[in-house]
């Protein structure tokens, strides 16, 4: 790094703080700290102290310490009881903690590593907290992300060029039986789709309906594109072959770490001799990273449902070859759009539920006990008698999975899908 680069860097960092300051209220009096009585007064006192430090003079260490106290205490409340019942107030407190910590990290000439830490902190707030002050963490993380992107532009990524060359082969010939294939239809009319597939709840693959997505033409999604847009962002990753396994777990990684470890296999991941599979699954990535949201569109056919666009849950599914979602059913209609790579999918009708041996526990009641591609005929004798449809979903395809239809998914190569849950 030359002296000139370093000087530019430092003045950029001072400029960075002024950009962040601009997102905050101008003074302490206008900084809101309102909480219900669920939040103990001692905690409110800590929050007020952190606010005082935000607008006043003190040491960086002290700011970070106070932010950390707020984070540690609210994190404990978030881990108490079931997630569904965690009081929203504690999630807000957690977000305030993230705000104070990120601000403290970025205040005085932060290094690139400190900016990344601040991004991670904001992401923790977005993942575990609740929106505060007009979703200020989202605003700040975007500012920080563009700083990192500016710094990354100067770097030369030889390695990444090599990864680009890694093209997807595989024609998947002979993988599915024609007589069991999910029917395909190109750009059906709304009425046609409604009459022939939605009302009768019949699965179908819609072709040509997402060709206009920037993700498939203007900004074609690739592993490298995702790195550049979201590399420093923290996301939840599922580790283990399938969520019904005993050694399945969840962890938090940056997109860069996830790609290096589980997509490009740069790091050896060995569990008991088997290579562990990591899956960025069922995550509302598009709320977290607005740039990616702009690359996709909500399928028009969702308007045939009863809810608003706001009621539609959009999830990202990004993983290497071999990720498996065990046979399960969901309580809403689903459009599964394939963007990168391909997936083998099998569908069973809810009429045949008895032959699919769902788990008895409350937690896994929507999941079958059977390993679809290796069924235990002794424990589950009826399974082979259950009729099914199958397909290989390719980039550009959208699979309509009717509500409560059982589905099993296995990725055949590095894959990125987007699902839309609607009613």
């Amino acid at each position, binding site marked *: 790094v030359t002296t000139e680069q370093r000087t530019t860097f430092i003045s950029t960092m001072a400029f960075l703080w002024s950009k962040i300051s601009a997102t905050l209220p101008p003074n302490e009096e206008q900084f809101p700290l309102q909480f219900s009585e669920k939040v103990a007064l*001692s905690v409110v006192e800590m929050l007020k102290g952190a606010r005082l430090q935000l607008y006043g003079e003190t040491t960086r260490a002290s700011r970070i310490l106070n932010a950390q106290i707020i984070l540690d205490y609210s994190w*404990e409340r978030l*881990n108490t009881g079931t997630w569904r019942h965690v009081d929203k107030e504690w999630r807000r407190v957690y977000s305030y903690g993230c705000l104070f910590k990120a601000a403290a990290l970025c205040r005085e000439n932060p290094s690139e590593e400190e900016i990344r830490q601040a991004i991670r902190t904001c992401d*923790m707030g977005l993942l575990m907290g609740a929106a505060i002050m007009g979703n200020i963490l989202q605003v700040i993380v975007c500012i920080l992300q563009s700083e990192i992107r500016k710094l990354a532009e100067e770097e030369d990524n030889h390695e990444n060029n090599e990864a680009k060359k890694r093209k997807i082969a595989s024609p998947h010939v002979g993988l599915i039986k024609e007589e069991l294939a999910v029917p395909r239809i190109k750009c059906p009319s709304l009425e046609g789709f409604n009459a022939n597939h939605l009302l009768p709840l019949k699965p179908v693959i819609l072709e040509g309906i997402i060709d206009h997505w920037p993700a498939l033409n203007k900004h074609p999604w690739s592993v490298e594109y995702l790195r550049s847009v979201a590399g420093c962002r*923290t996301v939840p990753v599922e580790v283990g072959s399938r969520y019904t396994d005993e*050694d399945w*777990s*969840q962890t*938090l990684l940056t997109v860069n770490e996830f790609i290096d470890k589980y997509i490009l296999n740069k790091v050896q991941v060995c569990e*008991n001799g088997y290579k562990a599979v990591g899956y960025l699954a069922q995550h509302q990535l598009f709320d977290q990273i607005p740039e990616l949201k702009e690359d996709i569109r909500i399928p028009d056919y969702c308007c045939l449902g009863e809810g608003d666009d706001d009621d539609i849950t959009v999830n990202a599914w990004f993983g290497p070859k071999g990720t498996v979602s065990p046979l399960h059913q969901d309580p809403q209609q689903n459009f599964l759009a394939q963007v990168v790579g391909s997936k083998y999918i099998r569908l069973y009708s809810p009429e045949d539920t008895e032959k699919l041996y769902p788990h008895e526990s409350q937690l896994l009641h929507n999941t079958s006990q059977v390993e679809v591609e290796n069924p235990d005929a002794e424990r589950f004798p009826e399974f082979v008698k259950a009729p099914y449809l199958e397909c290989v979903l390719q980039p550009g395809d959208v699979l309509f999975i009717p509500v409560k239809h059982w589905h099993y998914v296995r990725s055949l190569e590095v894959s990125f899908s987007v699902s839309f849950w609607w009613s």
Partner: protein
Amino acid sequence: MRWFGFGFNAFAQICVQEKSDKEDSSSAAGEVKVNVPIELKNHVGISKIRASWSRRASLFLDEEKSVRLAGFCAFISNESFSPVMVDTRGCRDAIISETHLTLAFPDRIECWDLQSKKKVPSWSMEILTQSQNSDVNLPLVPGGYISSKTPIFHSLSSHLQAKSLALGGEHAILLTAAGAVYTWGQGSHGELGHGGLIPEEEPRTVEALWGMSMRSVAAGGWHSVCVGDGGDLYVWGWNGSGQLGLPSRGLRKASQQKSDPQSGELCSSVSACLGEERHEEVYISIQAFPALVDVSPSCEIRTVSCGSRHTAAVTTTGCLYTWGWGEYGQLGHQTTTSLDEPKCVEFFRNECLHVVDVVCGPWNTFTAAVKKEVLAT
């Protein structure tokens, strides 16, 4: 008896910040994180200590029985809150939560809301004359127990013959007169010890301990501990911060990556998670059945206490061992490192102090000790 405290001190609940010490970073006194034991001022006559996150309650059980609070007191326009206004004289026992102070008097129990300016307790109950002379052992009260969230009073079946009760983050662990252990509440981190993660609404016996007589129980945020009659220590529940004294993957990862421990592994596995390093070590993030922990070679445990994510045990030979989350100095080893193995707090040995009792607040630890000469056999 001398009392010491270490760990979280942001509300001056251990010691007050000396203005002159502000520049002196080596001094432990007055800092937010006190990582080595500090003697409590005005400790003469303190019989018991109870601690919440932001406060410490000292029970003076000499002639003038009373309770004094240290730590967070919200003052509004120079008027102090009810803690100062509460008449605690004659009190036999007390427990404190973040929001309530519960006092046990010979003839009544009172529960005071520490956030309200009211001059009356928010809840109270009379103790019938026949129970007045029996030992009081909060949170147990005649007929049941007290919690700090509504409903305040919970009844307990008399056939359980409750002897002592420890309330954890969202679970409870009960010791009966016969030495049996019952648990109930949330179980998502294995803290009930029945082998699963499901909650229990009613007290359920910990079958794995059947046939072994226990003499004390303790509960942390998400873990449970009990001591057998022979001085053995049993632990179960969450080990994400090493609080069980079993190998914790979360700790190893945090020390390797120096990353934010909160964003580490959120493991939902019931049994051991296999380690991914060359060591082939077995890590445990949730222990759903009681496990025996060897605290120290051939030492009996006298008493144990749990904080939110740490554990402290006193041996019959007067040593204090701590392990678990250490971020605020609550382990007392002069660091803020978390440990997944019991470690002796050298301070007491160095000062020739024989530890006799330990009480943990969520993020700190208080110990009672006497000079070794005093014990002269």
